[in-house]
Every structure is written in structure tokens, then in C-alpha cells.
């Protein structure tokens, strides 16, 4: 399969970095290895890696597509959040890095995002994801319906269901309905200002 990703859907503004400047992409444009793309506010985009996966970027996301070769896909999320729907394939042949966390997947459907500050979130819709913390060198497995968070560079929490993940829009097919996801990750956090003590 070609080492490329094809833009199959977008709303708003999607740009690719060329040198020190940003160029807007349109549907059917192709990006190759070592491409950096970003969505602006109120925008989203869906890329297809033929035979490998579809990835959906939320608004204000920055993604580095370091390697798009089948069997060795490596993507780095620099900001924002992405949904990944991966065709079943060899273990760890599709990896996403966010901060100091690397998620290695087989066939699965999962969501990776930055939350408040430098927090990294990951939750799984289908299948399983193996996550490695580059800081602690520990691996954990996250199953469908579960999520983890790495708060601000600290260690990963234990996988468990989070109520807020039920609001995520996993749909990547515009013909099946709305594809935009605007879930507010702040709802995942305890509101410390709402705690009364006396």
C-alpha cells in the first residue's frame, strides 16, 4: 500500500505545514510521511490510510504523520484529539504517540486527546489498545469501554469506564450522519470550584 493518507472529508480549515508556512488542504489531497497537519477552530478532518485505518481530527488539533507504511504506522499527536479506526492487523503495527504515552493497537477503534494542561486521555470503543508510558516503561491494556488518563506527565491511571466518553461521536462516515465531535473534555474533570465545605 502507498505510504500516504488521503483527506476524505473536512469542515472548516485544515492545513499542512510546508517549510515554515501552512497551506490549506482540500478533499482528496494526499499527505505523505513526515507531514504535519492541523485543524483550526470549529474545524475537523478525516484521513484515510488505505488498507490501514481512518483517523478523524477534532478542532484545534496538530498531528505529525511520521510514518504511514503499512505494518509500521507511527503518528504523533501534538495537540487536540483524534479518533482512530484501525483495520485488524499485526500487533503494534499502528502506533500513536501523545506526550510520553504510546498507544499500540491492533484492530480497534479508540480516541486519543490532550485534556487540561498536559494531560493525555485515551479511551477505546472497540478492540484493545496496549499503552506504554515512556516515563515509567510500564504497559497496560485498555479494553473496549475503558479509558485512561496520564495527568500532566504523571503515571497512567488504571483503565476504567468514564461516563463522559459515552458522549464521544465515533462516526467517521459522513453518509451515516454527523461526524463532528465536540465533546467537552472539561466535563471529565472534577470541578474544584463547585466543592462546598461549609
Amino acid at each position, binding site marked *: 500500500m502507498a505510504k500516504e493518507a488521503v483527506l476524505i472529508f473536512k469542515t472548516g480549515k485544515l492545513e499542512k505545514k510546508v517549510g515554515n508556512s501552512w497551506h490549506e488542504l482540500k478533499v482528496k489531497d494526499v499527505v505523505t510521511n513526515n507531514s504535519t497537519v492541523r485543524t483550526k477552530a470549529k474545524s475537523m478532518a478525516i484521513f484515510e490510510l488505505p488498507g490501514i485505518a481512518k483517523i478523524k481530527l477534532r478542532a484545534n488539533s496538530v498531528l505529525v504523520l511520521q510514518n504511514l507504511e503499512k505494518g509500521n504506522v507511527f503518528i504523533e499527536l501534538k495537540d487536540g484529539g483524534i479518533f482512530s479506526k484501525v483495520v485488524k492487523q499485526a500487533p503494534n503495527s499502528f502506533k500513536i504517540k501523545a506526550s510520553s504515552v504510546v498507544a499500540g493497537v491492533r484492530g480497534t477503534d479508540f480516541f486519543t486527546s490532550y485534556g487540561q494542561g498536559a494531560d493525555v486521555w485515551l479511551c477505546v470503543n472497540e478492540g484493545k489498545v496496549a499503552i506504554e508510558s515512556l516515563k515509567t516503561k510500564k504497559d497496560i491494556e485498555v479494553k473496549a469501554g475503558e479509558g485512561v488518563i496520564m495527568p500532566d506527565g504523571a503515571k497512567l491511571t488504571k483503565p476504567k469506564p468514564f461516563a463522559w466518553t459515552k458522549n464521544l461521536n465515533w462516526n467517521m462516515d459522513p453518509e451515516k450522519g454527523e461526524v463532528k465531535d465536540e465533546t467537552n473534555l472539561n466535563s471529565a474533570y*472534577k470541578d474544584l470550584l463547585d466543592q462546598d465545605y461549609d
Partner: protein
Amino acid sequence: MIKRIFFAYLLGGVYAIYANHMPPSFSGQTEFNATVRAFYLHKRFDHNVTYSQSTIDNEQPSETGSNRSEKHLRIGTYYRAFKYLKLGAFYDLQNSMLHQNDWIRSNGNYFWQDTSKRFEHVFIADVTPRYQLSFLPGRNWVLELKNRFLYNTYNQQSTYRVRPGLMYVFMSGLDPILTVFTRVELYIPINYGSSTIYESWYYLGFLYNINSVIQIGLNFAKKYVNWGASDNFKFWHPTEDYNLTNDATTLGLMIIFRLQNI
């Protein structure tokens, strides 16, 4: 000569009656407080009920001669008007409270009267802005400035209480496990008292989350109370005045129950 001796004796007797007409000040006592509080969070409202009891070494001389046990039963609610602002309204039923006008004279003796059978009704309005200081290391710092306006129907006294406070919440993942706080509380009398600050408290406290519903806490406080001359004293001694400060250390135990239906 005999008349002089008799007159001196009479004056001595009069002096003996009035020697203790001002209350003595005291310092260094320890008081204990236990509080049980329940919150029910529903949308923007945080309804709550509190029962609190404090054991206080009674101010002497007292009518009863024994310790005083102050009790509060408070109900009310907070409303989250804005992200950074809560408004509250409460009714507080109080028992065994002591006010500066409880220093009275009876049968020639001065003492703090027995208030154990007296119930007082206090209405409270609360305005509390809070702000999370996310820019500080650790992120979970919360600054609070509690403002309370109290009206006591028993003696028509109005008080403004202001309490700046800083807390830090230790988290395990996203779940709070321990809150540490420090506060300063000042009671400013609006229509009574002879000092700008009637009472002040300096707190350090801890609240531990047993789970998402139950918290237990411990707090230490230093309390100062400024007593001015009581009305009864001024009636009998119109040309005299007194102002004294009592202080005590308070050890408080608290348990909080949190329920929610959002």
C-alpha cells in the same frame, strides 16, 4: 473614731461587692468541636444541612459554673450563579451562645448568665467567589473569599464575616483524595460591639476523601474574642468601660456526606 472605722468598713464592703464587676479575661484554653454536614448537589444548587457542637470551658464567673456546649443546626443552600461565584442562604438555630451582653448583675453579683435554655435564630446570606490558580505548580489550588452577612433575631445584631482561604486538593488520577486548607475569618460587628473585629479565627485543616460520598476532616484553629462592656454593666457603671480579649485553641472534627443528582 468609731464612725471613721465604721465608714471605712462600709466602704470596704461596697468595694467587695463591685471589685469583680468586670469580667476577667482568659487565655490558653482548648475547645473541641464536632460537625456533621451533608450536601446534596442538584444542578446549580448545593443544598446542605449541618449539625455542629462545641464544648467550651465556660467564661467565668458563670451562672452555671460548668462548661458551655454551643450547638448549631443549620439548613440552607448554595446557588452557583456563575462559574466563579456562589450565593448562599441559610437559617441557623443556635443554642448556648454567649454574647457580650450576657455579662449581667444579679443580687449584687456579676457573672456570665446561663444561656443553655436559650435558642437563637440567625439568618445568613453568603457570597463566595472562588478561583482556581491553575498557573501554580500542582494546578489544584483554589482561592476563596467567603462573605457572610448574619442577622440574629434574638438581639437584632448584624455581623459581617469575611474569610479568605486557600486550599490545595491532592488527586489520585482525577479523584480528589485530600484537601488541605488554611483560612482567616474575621467577624465584623455592624451594630454592636466596641471593637472593629469582634472575633477572629485562624484555621489550618485537612479533609480526607474516604470515597466519593464521605469525607472526614480535622482542623486546628486559634480563636480570639473581644468583649466590650455589656449594656447591663453600662447601666450600673455609666462612667466605666472595659475591653478584654479572650483566646482559645480549637480542635475540630468533621464528617461530610456528599450526594448528587446532576
